[in-house]
């Protein structure tokens, strides 16, 4: 991955993107644009990276870009960014990628966002604990509904682990966030695949 390649890819993609992504995705195009910029930053920052690091860098840049694209509207994007910031090695990268928006997205706003959600989730949790306690007093046989509830709870927990920032939000928002996250993941995958195709074409041409 060198700079020239990236610029070439950028040019090609800018042509092909409207073509390839006819599906209504200004989001995708924006993703692509940002990601290419981010990748350029990646490459420029360090030349020597072994494979795993490169993979991580790419993935991270893609994630951060995706998150920044959805920054205003979703909770998980904040979670991604804050997680990325916590790790030392990716801090600078994230800062560079986010660029000007970094100031907007940093701590004060995000914390307000997260704290509000946590409060509501806690209150809901408290309510549910109370109702659970009340229910436990009365002996109950094993009913299908309770089995189903347990299943649902288990799976909700798994889902919380999957979606970034899912631990601290309540069930409703969890579903909503997962919807949003799925959409952006799909877009990200499409962007990546498009980029791959273009890079393949470039490779062929270069040979």
């Amino acid at each position, binding site marked *: 991955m060198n700079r020239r390649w990236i610029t070439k890819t950028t040019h090609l993609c800018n042509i092909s993107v409207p073509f390839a992504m006819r599906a209504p995705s200004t989001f995708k195009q924006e993703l692509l644009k940002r990601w290419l910029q981010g990748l350029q930053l990646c490459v420029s920052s360090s030349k020597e990276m072994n*494979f795993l690091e490169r*993979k991580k860098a790419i993935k991270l840049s893609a994630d951060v870009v995706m998150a920044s694209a959805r920054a205003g509207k979703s909770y998980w994007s904040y979670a991604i960014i804050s997680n990325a910031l916590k790790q030392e090695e990716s801090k600078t990268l994230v800062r560079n990628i986010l660029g000007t928006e970094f100031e907007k997205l940093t701590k004060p706003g995000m914390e307000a966002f997260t704290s509000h959600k946590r409060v509501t989730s806690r209150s809901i949790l408290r309510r549910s604990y109370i109702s659970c306690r009340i229910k436990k007093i009365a002996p109950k046989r094993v009913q299908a509904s309770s089995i189903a509830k347990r299943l649902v709870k288990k*799976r*909700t927990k798994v889902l919380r682990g999957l*979606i970034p920032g899912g631990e601290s939000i309540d069930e*409703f928002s969890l579903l909503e966030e997962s919807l949003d996250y799925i959409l952006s*993941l799909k877009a990200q995958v499409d962007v990546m695949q498009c980029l791959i195709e273009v890079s393949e074409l470039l490779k062929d041409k270069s040979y």
Partner: protein
Amino acid sequence: MQPSSREMQGISIAARMNQSQIAVQELQNNGQQQIANSQMHQVQGSHYDHHPSQDDFLEQMLSNIPSWPELPGNPKSPWDLNPQNPNGTAASNNGSAIANGGSQKLFNIAIGASSNKSSEDQSGSENLHYPFDESTLLASRLRQHQISGNSPTGKAAMMLQQQLLLSRGVGGGGGGGGMARSPTSASGGAASLGGEHGLLPLPLTLGSGDSSDSRLLVDRSRDDVVDGSFKSPTGEGPIQGLFNGFTGSLPRTAQAANQQHFHHPQNGSISTQSFGAPATGMNQATPAAGANGAGNGQGQPRQRVRARRGQATDPHSIAERLRRERIAERMKALQELVPNANKTDKASMLDEIIDYVKFLQLQVKVLSMSRLGGATAVAPMVADMSSDAAGGGGAGGGIGRGVNGNQMTPTNDSISVTEHQVAKLMEEDMGSAMQYLQGKGLCLMPISLATAISTATCHSRNPPSGSSALAHLNANNNNGSGNNHPLLSSSNVDGPPSPSLSVLTVQSANMGNGAGDTSVKDATSVSKP
């Protein structure tokens, strides 16, 4: 009857129809006992000249409604048409006129701008009738209330029920729009509906808000509204009596509108005359009354909601029902997004969602690796895959294009271990063997296909993009032999970098033929690596 109509207009849920039909029948039964007032009949009959379709039902309803001689010098003068909202009033009058056809017909009317607009065309003259109707209606309700002697708390509970149903019902509609990420459409819907339904914009914004913040906030306020609704009818004595009497004879859903109108001033939303004169009168009276009569209100128990058929009564279950419905909305939206989401229950939907998210994440990971086009150590890759792809095997259909750019050279050790494992599994059960393979991110394919793919990849210099499940064939592959016993061959290729997913080709014992013949069992089930 008229005030209820506007609220009914907002509701388009057929599920409620049954219950309200029952309510209507009960109402009619109650109404039979009352004296029909010809004057009332006349007055209201003129109202509905514009809506001949509902006339018969309306008249039936109205004939059952007791009437009260017109009150001279109506003490509730504020109940007269509120001049502040002439447009809303007109619309609401017309809307209510339409909807007053009774719950049965109400639900057949499409919500929204169409019915509202058609009603708005006919305005003006109806406004004049309004004060008459409302005062007489109210008076009749009061009388009935006094006759029936129902407990005010029951009425209050019923009203709450209705309001919740209403708000929830509309919230369901609004929520669906919101989930589609088209806030404009939802707000448009809200505009068409909400000109007259004061509380309706609240649940609609609930659904259409992009950020969960607004949603949660609105939820809070709605809870407050719900709680407040109990207090207001339990305020001033005579007003309460009137109100209860009023609501007692109305269809139950109507009471929700009454509730909502109590909160119009509280919410600062447009006070839409949905109940016309009595509601506005109460709106203006109860804030004053509420200030004075707050003490009275607290004394009354607020949990008593009269049971609708088949539904629970206390606020806890109401809140739970609300919660469940909101979750159901989102599940529905997710259902469209996630493939294979034809299941309706929450647990399996969650399962599908989880699998899909895992699959997408895995795809991103693989794609980000494949872009590099370099040799990769397979061990971490395989380890990742086996942990990640535990549930994601079946989602391979989502891949439009293949993963390419990696050259995977599974070490011989891992392959042989896998081979033995799969052979063992195959002896007992084919399905478990397949699952094991899929768990490892490998797939089963006929040997003929594997050979074909390998030859294809060997020929091309660069990996063809868009091919999935390409195999590396080992030089020392023993797939050509041993057709009579279960065979396991793993594939590795050396040569030009080619895209690859490691593939185990298995030939089952059933096939006793030469290389390449396969049974259906061995059809490829490509699992996402």
